[in-house]
């Protein structure tokens, strides 16, 4: 047996004995503290990841779907969008498409008015790419042949406890008539057919009319400002872009993240917060382990002296304390994951947190869990090393017979 293997074996043996036959209360308490430290590390990350995920889903489900096809730079509209749709609709993984017009407009109701984006859609197509049709809180969604009817988000309508009540129309209800002034100067009155709430600030500031209605306003036909494409998976949009180009789509094709500036901003801010809370969490966990191991080395000072006297190498003793610390940390991580998955995640699925980007539940990403577990274990190893290394620095005689 090599000396390194022997040393590891003796270190592990000592660590096992100190843990298994030591004070059980201390062991359990230390593991509990480690578990709470791990939960503390994971919880904030999971909330931030959950917020990021919720925001991404909202961007996809209520604003841009997975892929957006836009006119080339010099064009305003896509001509004959049906021909584009025909090229891509049979690509495996494409679930639906919605060619739509997008324009700015001023919507007025009684004394109040504001500028918002209006999208003009084919309601049947829109149901394939967006969840807005399922999020009506008053009235109902558009029908294919609706004219002079509009549906608006709750931040436009007002009176539904939105975040932007002061800029809203102040309490429009289904059946009310609003006046819409389009950018080309056309003004029309519309009956409010429905009000929707997506739980997402940005999409709640949208209004929808039918495509036919918009074409009559703009005086154009068979065109589109954009085509939204729904795919079966999120995060895999890149592979469709090349396929679409190969199939002869010459317009600009962009995946949803291009439009999700808010997600990037959030992620950046969350990363900074995560780094801060993570550093504090690691430090707290490290200090906890340090104190536990320090107390242990103080109480076992004489024992460590005796071990050294009988020829047990200092490195073996130090390593045995590192092993103990790592054991506490590994058990803490496992217990922490159990707490997260068995208690906290189900709780927040039942009672999600409400944020401007929607309902947020905890999202435990494998990478984050691995990184934090590794961080905690490394912190523990360092915290186990320092006091034991310090303890074996003193002379054998001081360790055994010192004050």
């Amino acid at each position, binding site marked *: 047996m090599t000396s390194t293997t022997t040393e590891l074996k003796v270190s592990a043996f000592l660590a096992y004995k100190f843990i298994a036959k030591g004070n059980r209360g201390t062991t359990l308490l230390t593991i509990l503290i480690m578990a709470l430290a791990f939960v503390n590390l994971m919880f904030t990350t999971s909330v931030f990841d959950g917020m990021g995920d919720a925001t991404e889903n909202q961007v996809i489900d209520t604003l841009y779907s997975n892929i957006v096809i836009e006119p080339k730079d010099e064009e305003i509209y896509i001509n004959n969008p049906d021909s584009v749709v025909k090229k891509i609709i049979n690509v495996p993984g494409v679930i639906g498409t919605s060619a739509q017009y997008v324009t700015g407009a001023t919507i007025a109701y009684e004394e109040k008015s504001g500028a918002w984006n209006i999208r003009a859609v084919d309601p049947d197509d829109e149901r394939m790419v967006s969840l807005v049709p399922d999020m009506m809180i008053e009235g109902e969604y558009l029908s294919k042949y609706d004219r002079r009817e509009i549906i608006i988000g709750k931040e436009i309508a007002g009176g539904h406890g939105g975040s932007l009540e002061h800029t809203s129309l102040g309490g429009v209800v289904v059946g009310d008539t609003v006046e819409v002034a389009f950018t080309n100067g056309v003004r029309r009155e519309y009956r409010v057919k429905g009000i929707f709430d997506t739980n997402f600030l940005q999409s709640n500031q949208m209004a929808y009319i039918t495509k036919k209605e918009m074409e009559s306003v703009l005086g154009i036909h068979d065109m589109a400002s954009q085509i939204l494409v729904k795919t079966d998976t999120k995060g895999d949009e890149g592979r469709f872009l090349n396929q679409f180009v190969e199939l002869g789509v010459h317009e600009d094709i962009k995946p949803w993240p291009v439009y999700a500036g808010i997600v990037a901003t959030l992620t950046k801010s969350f990363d900074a917060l995560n780094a801060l809370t993570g550093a504090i969490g690691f430090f707290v966990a490290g200090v906890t382990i340090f104190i536990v191991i320090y107390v242990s080395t103080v109480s076992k000072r004489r024992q460590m002296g005796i071990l050294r006297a*009988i020829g047990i190498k200092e490195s073996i003793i130090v390593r045995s304390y590192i092993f103990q610390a790592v054991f506490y940390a590994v058990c803490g991580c496992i217990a922490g994951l159990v707490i997260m998955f068995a208690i906290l995640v189900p709780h927040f699925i039942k009672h999600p947190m409400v944020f401007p980007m929607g309902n947020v539940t905890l999202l435990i990403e494998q990478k984050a869990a691995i990184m934090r577990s590794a961080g905690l274990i490394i912190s523990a190893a360092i915290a186990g090393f320092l006091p034991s290394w310090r303890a074996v620095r003193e002379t054998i*005689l001081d360790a055994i017979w010192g004050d």
Partner: protein
Amino acid sequence: MMERTERVEQVERDEQDTIIATRNLSRTYTMGKMQMTALNRVTLDIRRGEFAAIMGKSGSGKSTLLHQLGLLDTPTEGEIVIDEVEISGLSESEKTMFRLEKFGYVFQEYAILPEMTALENVYLPAMALGLSRDEYVTKGMDALEKVGLAERADHRPREMSGGEQQRVAIARALINKPKILFADEPTANLDSVSSRQILELFRALNRDIGQTILMVTHELEDADIVDRVIWLADGEVVDREG
């Protein structure tokens, strides 16, 4: 000429027979601005297979001498040669290995680990030497057998009397077949019956397997059981305690 050759051979035999040799060994402690000499130019030889006791009054330097010879402390001056190795040339890690391979220790307190069974306490040094599990368990049981505690192998220290714990410590000291067994007042904390058992055990080990034993003791009657007494007074070797 013939006589001279015989004398040289005798000296060489004596040298080979000597397992510990010190020359002018001194140990001075600094306490604040004061210097305290615990050992003063001690020169002595211990033969292989000898059972020697270091005796003297409190503060005479008995334990200090044992600590220097047992490599638990470093002398201020002088030379120690153990088993033909000049100790001052060894690094700390070499001293650790030297202790593991060549020494056995029995301390005044029952210096065994409370978390381990008697057998585990005993085989720990053999495990650290890199023996296989079968080897160190067998050797551990043999050592416990020698001290009469084989049937207590799975007991933890708190389940054993002071005398039994000290015998476990002796078994641990013996497991690597040490060249020298150091014992620092091994009976000081024991009742008279247990003390006698320990001393008889030492005597038997010395007699049966030729174990070299160097023991510090303050009990005058222990002088009767050993081969030789090294008397110390004020850190110096003297002919006999005054």
